[in-house]
């Protein structure tokens, strides 16, 4: 068997090799840091363990035994499950009635961990069992699990509902001593906010039954583990993040796809089509697999995995055992792939993010990533799937053409920095808060003491009065505020949205398994006539129906070589700053709230084949208005002149219709480019979904009175993203500047890899690379 190393890879393309290998890094092996189990655990338990504990496991157990909450932020397969399973075993020994709740973000993971935990208890000889309780659990099992199971395995969408009938859970809730939030880093943004509130409602109901459990958050490495866990649980936590588990040597190669000859996609405003990196990944995996290097490939879509598996088998002339893996496959098929991968009967598996999270498939020899997965944490998690025990491993990163991938390709140091993205959770969103307070009122009448969970007092009082005046609550905090609305308010909470107007996505000629979408996104991406991609398939939106008890959009499965771009008109008004940094000289950076009104006006259809454009076609929808969080940067009044000077007369660009002077047009392009750039590249610093954001740039804003660009959250009430950019503005602006300056596209107006954005409402005009660089330089110089 060949050792997985770079040589095997270079062997594949001896001619193209040098051209395709953009970078090579060796991550050295690491020895384990072990602690004898007896130092941390009582003898009975320690003796039943075969090996020593890793240092981080020991530290975590120590902290837990001292009664603290713990957040373990170490890499995947570092044995986090052991920590909380062992601790529960300890609790159970002390108190035979002890119960626990273990929560996971996906059903697949719940099933996997239920098995793992039960195996562990069996190995330890502990008389305890775990069982999953969620939407799939059979009705007759449910009372049994509630009454008897020591560990209830579930998820937060389920818990949100179960809290509404907590009386049935009395026996369990009276005895809960431990709550585990695994893969905690997955809870950010809108979903993270909901989880944070469900956890507070859970703690409140548990306290009602006399339980005040300890919390364990198990997370991948993120930049702010303490802050994130505390925002999630509402409690202080002890962070354990120095990984004591061993690792073999790893070769990391940045491998560029073969040149394709077809230059159409460079320089045109095309959303990433994703095929070429995937095709290259398939070939690489085929090559490695045939040489006995078992490989796991990661792709972005389900369809991508199917195509890659097929292509890999073709590349190897049928002499390769390769399979796709994704959440759309039946449980049986997925289990089959997991098992045959583990047993070595498969040479290659191509997966979506489904195999990134902790499901146990053993380890492979090599991993190939088609495209950067969006965060460093995710990147290392996937890489980490390669490497059996302490043996060597090979990982190959094949970048796509989009801005972030190109940034990473140009700056390999970015991946190897110790710094990891911060996870963003912002519990200051009022609509989400108010909805959970209403659910809490249904669970138990709201009283003064509830300030503990929903404070500060002023905020809770306002929530009580907004609902009382809306007829949904009666009473007040002093005497108790009771819920008085339609039954089960918990079912109106959508764990992925901030408002309650949700559009279902329906497809008459096929099956589209999409979550409902919020109105802002429906209007923007799913207006009638829009072409959308979902999970590798293309759909055309045929109808958007809002005047209906259950609003919906209707889509039809199509297969064209076209895509649509949408134009909109946006205003930002009633801006209120809650914090500012005055940098002097007319430069300022601020954050706060504002009203964003967006009217989607028309759309065009573009052909990928011949570059033809049809339209514009009108969009007949009313404007969307949201009150949300934003940040903005103000520039000095004479910035236009300064930029013109920096760029030079030859560098100025005039608009096609001559409607604006070249200096003004160029300056506007600089502002617009800065706005796009920061939104596109913010994910390099922060765990956020930039499709939940938008921006506006203007050479003169009526309220700020200055040249300004705004970055705002695209959901009602805000979600913490733009405010997080404010906090990290130097880093985000810095990275944007680097990407723009480094981009080797020829056009002064930029390309999709630097300034162009698929979400631009102005047809990506005006944009200007040099002007953007000049503006960002001006701001960065002042920040330093």
């Amino acid at each position, binding site marked *: 068997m060949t050792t997985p190393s770079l040589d095997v890879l270079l062997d594949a393309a001896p001619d193209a090799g040098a051209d395709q290998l953009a970078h090579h890094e060796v991550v050295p092996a690491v020895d384990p840091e072990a602690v004898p189990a007896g130092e941390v655990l009582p003898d009975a338990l320690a003796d039943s363990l075969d090996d020593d504990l890793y240092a981080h496991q020991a530290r975590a157990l120590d902290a837990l035994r001292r009664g603290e909450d713990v957040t373990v932020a170490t890499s995947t397969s570092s044995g986090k499950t052991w920590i909380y399973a062992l601790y529960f075993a300890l609790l159970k020994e002390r108190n035979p009635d002890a119960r626990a709740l273990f929560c996971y973000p996906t059903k697949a993971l719940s099933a996997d961990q239920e098995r793992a935990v039960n195996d562990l208890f069996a190995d330890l000889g502990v008389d305890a069992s775990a069982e999953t309780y969620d939407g799939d659990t059979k*009705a007759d099992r*449910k*009372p049994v699990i509630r009454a008897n199971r020591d560990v209830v395995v579930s998820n937060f969408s389920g818990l949100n*509902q*179960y809290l509404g*009938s907590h*009386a*049935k859970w*009395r026996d369990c809730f009276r005895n809960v001593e431990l709550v585990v939030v695994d893969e905690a880093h997955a809870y950010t943004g809108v979903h993270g906010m909901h989880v944070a509130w469900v956890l507070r409602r859970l703690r409140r109901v548990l306290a009602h039954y006399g339980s005040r459990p300890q919390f364990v958050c198990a997370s991948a490495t993120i930049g702010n583990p303490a802050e994130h866990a505390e925002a999630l649980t509402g409690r202080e936590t002890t962070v354990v993040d120095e990984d004591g588990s061993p690792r073999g040597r790893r070769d990391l190669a940045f491998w560029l796809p073969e040149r394709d000859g077809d230059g159409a996609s460079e320089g045109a405003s095309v959303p990433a089509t994703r095929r070429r990196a995937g095709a290259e990944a398939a070939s690489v995996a085929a090559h490695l697999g045939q040489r006995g290097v078992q490989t796991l490939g990661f792709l972005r879509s389900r369809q991508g995995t199917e195509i890659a598996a097929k292509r890999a088998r073709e590349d190897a002339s049928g002499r390769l055992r390769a399979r796709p893996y994704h959440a759309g496959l039946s449980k049986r098929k997925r289990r089959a792939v997991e098992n045959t991968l583990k047993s070595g009967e498969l040479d290659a598996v191509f997966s979506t993010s489904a195999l990134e999270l902790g499901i146990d498939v053993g380890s492979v020899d090599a991993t190939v990533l088609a495209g950067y997965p969006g965060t460093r944490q995710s990147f290392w998690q996937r890489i980490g799937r390669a490497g059996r025990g302490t043996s060597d491993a090979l990982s190959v990163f094949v970048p796509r053409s989009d801005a972030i991938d190109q940034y990473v390709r140009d700056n390999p140091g970015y991946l190897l920095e110790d710094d990891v993205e911060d996870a963003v959770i912002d519990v200051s969103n*009022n*609509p989400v808060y*108010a*909805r959970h307070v209403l659910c809490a*009122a*249904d*669970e*138990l*009448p709201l009283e003064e003491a509830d300030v503990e969970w929903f404070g500060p007092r002023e*905020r809770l009082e*306002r*929530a009580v*009065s*907004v*609902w*009382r*005046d*809306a*007829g949904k609550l*009666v*009473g007040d905090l002093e*005497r*108790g505020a*009771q*819920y*008085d*609305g*339609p*039954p089960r308010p918990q079912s*109106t909470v959508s764990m992925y949205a901030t408002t*309650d*107007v949700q559009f279902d996505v329906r497809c008459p000629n096929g099956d589209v398994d999409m979550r409902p979408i919020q109105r802002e996104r429906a209007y923007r991406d799913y207006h009638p006539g829009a072409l959308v991609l979902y999970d590798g398939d293309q759909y055309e939106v045929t109808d958007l129906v809002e005047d209906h*008890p*259950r609003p919906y959009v209707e889509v039809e499965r199509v297969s064209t070589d076209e895509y649509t771009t949408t134009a909109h008109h946006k205003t930002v008004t009633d801006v209120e700053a809650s914090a500012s940094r005055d940098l002097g000289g007319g430069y300022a950076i601020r954050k706060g709230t504002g009203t964003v009104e967006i009217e989607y006006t028309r759309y065009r259809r573009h052909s990928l084949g011949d570059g033809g454009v049809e339209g514009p076609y009108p969009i007949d929808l009313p404007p969307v208005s949201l*009150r*949300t969080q934003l940040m903005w940067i103000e520039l000095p009044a004479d910035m236009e002149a300064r930029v013109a000077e920096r760029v030079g007369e030859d560098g100025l660009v005039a608009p096609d219709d001559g409607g604006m002077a070249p200096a003004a047009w160029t300056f506007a392009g600089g502002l617009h480019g800065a706005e796009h750039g920061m939104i596109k590249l913010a994910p390099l610093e922060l765990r956020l979904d930039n499709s939940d954001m938008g921006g506006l740039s203007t050479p003169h804003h009526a309220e700020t009175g200055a040249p300004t660009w705004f970055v705002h959250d695209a959901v*009602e*009430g805000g979600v913490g993203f733009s405010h997080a950019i404010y906090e990290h503005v130097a880093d985000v602006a810095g990275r944007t500047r680097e990407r723009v300056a480094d981009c080797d596209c020829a056009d002064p107006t930029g390309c999709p890899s630097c300034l162009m954005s698929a979400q631009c409402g102005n047809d990506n005009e005006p944009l200007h690379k040099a002007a953007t660089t000049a503006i960002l330089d001006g701001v960065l110089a002042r920040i330093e």
Partner: protein
Amino acid sequence: MERSVVLAVYPDAALDRLTDRQLGESLDYVDPDVVLVERPYRRTRFPGGVATVALGGRDVGPVTDPPGPQVAVVRSPDDLAALREHERRGSLDADAETFVLSDLLSVDVDLVALETSLDGRKAYERALSAADLEGSYTHLTTAAAPGYRNDWGGLVVQGVRPGADETGASPGAAVAALSLHADGTVAADTYDPGRFGLEGLAGVGPTRAATLRHAGYASKSDVASASVDDLRTLDGIGAATARRVRYAARARVDGRVYRTSSARLPGNDPVFVDVETDGLSPTMLWLIGVYDTRTDAYRSFLATDPDDRGAAVRAFASWYAENATDRPIVAYNGERFDFPHLTEHVDRYCPAHADAWRDAWTFDLLWWARTEDNAVLPGVTNALDDVASALGWAGDDTGLSGAVVGQRFRRWLADPRDGTELDWERHEAYCEDDVRALAYVYDAVRDAEHVAGVAAGGGPTDTEPAETAQGTLGDFS
């Protein structure tokens, strides 16, 4: 006797859905004193004898006669001044609540700013204070849904129109029936149009109703007289549905219960209970009525002191422990309401009795009949008072609902004084009536005929039944 006036609201969307027969049946059931429609031309749908008011119409002033409570319509804040004149003349009874109906007030909920405001409030309140009215007024608005109620600093606002809710929580194609009481409390119920006509039969939706009509079965009586075999020949109606539908029609037309399975009721001298609370998520169970068939005695456990919220529960639990641990405790809709609340309050206020209560043999008659599919009940709805009256129970028919009683009790709790104190004796009498109605329905079920093809399961049991017949605090999630 409770005085109340019934306002029925028929939005356009509901009228579009209702056939004439369904409309007639809904009017018989609701028996309104006045009907509100959205536009004047809609009034023509209603038979001559029914008093109607249109939103876009011209009537102003009282639309029902004294003595109160009464409904008065205003079109602009200025019309409020005219009400003073009506008070003076006696066309408005200033001793009972008057319900002023308009579209002048609407509710705007701003969750981002955490503020709810009442649009139109300023102008309305200004006109109201200038009018210097003597009586007590509740303000009905068509810009809010029937479940809406709030006291805006003395201005009590109640919604009336289904669908007038931005979130879509209130379906627009529904009929609302509001019982407006002399003391200002309001009971609001909404009914889906499918509740009436052939669609009101279990198993019949709009499609099957059309099928039946086309086949010549115009009314429930027609369906009741048909044979199961005749019905099965129809498109989309198989043997099981035919039987179900036919017996549902028989039950309605004959005013009887039909047993559709051989499941048995618990025998053993049941104890019937009913519980009054201070709301759907109660802080207090203030009245527990109990009818013990073994002693043929009714008694109630009453708690009126806001500082001793467990008084009734404690007395009940203690009585239960001494007298009834060997008998089934029967409630109507107990699974969802009475039993979970009793358990929680026993736990909280008399934990010494918690274990005994946990082991209680509880039985929910509605659950057994409807959810477990053991019997067809004859009411227009499955509410206890509908079923009992369909079976001939000549009870009090107070028109009070648990919601209204809860409202009154909360008013008392918030501000215990003469003006808010309930007439305890009267409410105990209402509760007794409800409990006896439950016993009456239970007997009717016990004595009911089994449908053809289903054998009776022998006599009532004398010992504790197996788990399946026992309506314990099982899951229904």
